[in-house]
């Protein structure tokens, strides 16, 4: 079940950084700042992480704090919860969201419930990171986007960093949170390169961000589809349509205020979600906009989601299953009553 994606690449330019390097620097900084912080997961140590996120950290921090685990997702996620109860601040890496289902009992029945079930006595300050999403021809068991399922669960905070700044900035506040935080890293983002984030910037894990302001419609998205939404917005500009793009950043709790305020300005909404449509995060966002912005809407809400199939291997099939720029553009034009 192991996946290998490339090798770690130093960009060679100190002003530039990849998404994976940004996460690595965030882990490194957290471990230097707080000796209660440690990283554990499958192949995070000698191998350097299946997506090379933790490459080099074993050499700096040693095998106690960069802890390789057996292939026992329920065991080591539960151990992370126990360590958090015992005064540590674990970062648990699960290779992909698909494998996290083997640990769902621990996440749902322990991490998310212990504080409430104990009448407020037992907080669980754990951070669980995992890769999500498709687009790399890894087929169904390595390609699903199930973060929407986790966003269903009270007691969890769900983050989806879509930018290098967020990859760098969200980890420390997640570790400072007294309750469980899950961080979903879309696998297509690890190699994305951009300006190195300001390491002193304070990360925000409460609000959505408007990544592109616009007047004519609101595109709500997160994670791996942010870049597609932004590309669609550029394409829409050539049609004379000015799209606003919201990056949710936090999938639970949702930042309703930012979405509703945007729709109050644009009167149209398109939701782009790599998850399946039925019972999805996109469905929840759509419901909230109808509940809270019904009289501001001038057109039906559109959703662009993955096709309701297990994600297939063949490139053309996989591309057809996932939200793409053309589909976002088409849905957007429908909301403004224009045809390309």
């Amino acid at each position, binding site marked *: 079940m192991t996946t290998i994606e490339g090798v770690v690449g130093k960009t060679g330019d100190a002003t530039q950084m990849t998404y994976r390097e940004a996460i690595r620097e965030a882990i490194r900084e957290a471990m230097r700042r707080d000796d209660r912080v440690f990283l554990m997961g499958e192949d995070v140590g000698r191998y350097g992480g299946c997506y090379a996120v933790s490459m080099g950290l074993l050499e700096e921090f040693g095998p106690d704090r960069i802890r390789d685990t057996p292939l*026992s997702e329920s065991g080591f996620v*539960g151990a992370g919860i126990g360590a958090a109860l015992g005064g*540590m601040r674990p970062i648990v890496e699960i290779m992909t969201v698909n494998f996290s289902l083997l640990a769902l*009992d621990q996440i749902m*029945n322990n991490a998310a419930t212990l504080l409430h*079930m104990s009448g407020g*006595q*037992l*907080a669980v300050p754990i951070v669980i990171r995992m890769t999500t999403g498709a687009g790399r021809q890894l087929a169904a068991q390595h390609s699903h986007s199930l973060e929407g399922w986790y966003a269903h669960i009270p007691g969890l905070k769900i983050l989806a960093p879509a930018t290098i700044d967020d990859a760098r900035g969200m980890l420390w506040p997640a570790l400072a949170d007294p309750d469980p935080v899950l961080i979903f890293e879309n696998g297509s983002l690890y190699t994305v390169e951009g300006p190195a984030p300001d390491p002193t910037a304070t990360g925000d894990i409460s609000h959505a961000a408007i990544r592109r302001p616009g007047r004519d419609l609101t595109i709500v998205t997160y994670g791996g589809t942010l870049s597609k939404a932004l590309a669609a917005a550029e394409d829409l500009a050539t049609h004379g349509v000015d799209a606003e793009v919201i990056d949710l950043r936090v999938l639970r709790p949702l930042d309703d205020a930012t979405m509703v305020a945007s729709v109050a300005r644009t009167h149209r909404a398109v939701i782009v979600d790599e998850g399946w449509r039925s019972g999805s995060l996109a469905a929840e966002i759509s419901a909230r906009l109808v509940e809270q912005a019904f009289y501001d809407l001038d057109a039906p809400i559109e959703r662009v989601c993955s096709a309701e199939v297990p994600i297939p291997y063949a490139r053309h099939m996989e591309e057809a299953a996932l939200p793409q720029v053309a589909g976002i553009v088409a849905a957007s034009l429908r909301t403004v009553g224009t045809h390309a």
Partner: protein
Amino acid sequence: MHAPPTEPRAVDTRDVDPRSTDPRVEDLRQMLRIRRFEERCVELYSSSKIRGFMHLCIGEEAVSVGVLGQLGPADAVVSTYREHGHALARGLSMTAILAEMFGRQTGVSRGRGGSMHLFDAARRFYGGNAIVGGGLPLAVGLALAEKMRCTGRIVACLFGDGAMAEGEFHESANLAALWRLPVVFFCENNGYAMGTALAGEHAQTDLALRAASYGMVSWSADGMDVLAVSDAARRAVEFVRDSGEPCFVELHTYRFRAHSMYDPDRYRDKAEIASWRERDPITALSAALQGDETLSQHDLDRIEAGIIAEIDQAVAEADAAPEESVDDLTLFVHSEAHRDHH
């Protein structure tokens, strides 16, 4: 944080015969206290004061008293949904346990948990887990924290024979042995995973043998004899404290009552139940103590009376306790909400 419940009121046994300084007398008193408490719980369940799922450990009291008695106050305990005995032996307040089962604000879990979810952070009692096997990884993680923080403290993890069929047992045993963590796995083997007998769920019914395959020191002891349990638990705790490595102790025991209050108990032979009742840990120890004249019938009556008085008072106090306000329904979902509220 929710303030821990008040200290349990100690029952005064000072006017019992001086020979009662024999520690076996306190073992007997603790087992009787658990037995009488649960018998009262049955009455309270029948009168609908207690609802939900309730699992009794009547018959298994020697395990609670023998195991919990060997731990230090700073050690951690991870338990199961059949945990009234573990909780009482750990020193959780009887009043607060009852208040929890009555669904009251002063309950150990402020009415959010009920019988299956008793917690006490101050006594490092980590529940109260109703997913079979779900507590084992937590115990591994607690032990990992103790090891990384060099505290010298250990973790006691109690679970049943049914949990040994769960993957989480095998993952946890492997992790604890691989990482050399200070945890004792106490398997309270009462012979049944709910209604399925041991031989119907395990290809290899020698549970200590299976645990040993993970490279852990493992052995079995008589769970119906509190002295045997205490001895086994003492050796296990000393081993883990000295070596820093895990070990496994299987305690053969039996529940005299059904699995839960909903269970008609159709799957057990009456003769089998009767034969185990002959090995009642309380009757056996009581007979031994009276046989060697450590304890008179009069002493025993006084102990019983003290326990009944404690239970009466706990029931009265729990019954008088307030209910949590529904305004606080969403409290404790996040720590932030808790902080905002206060």
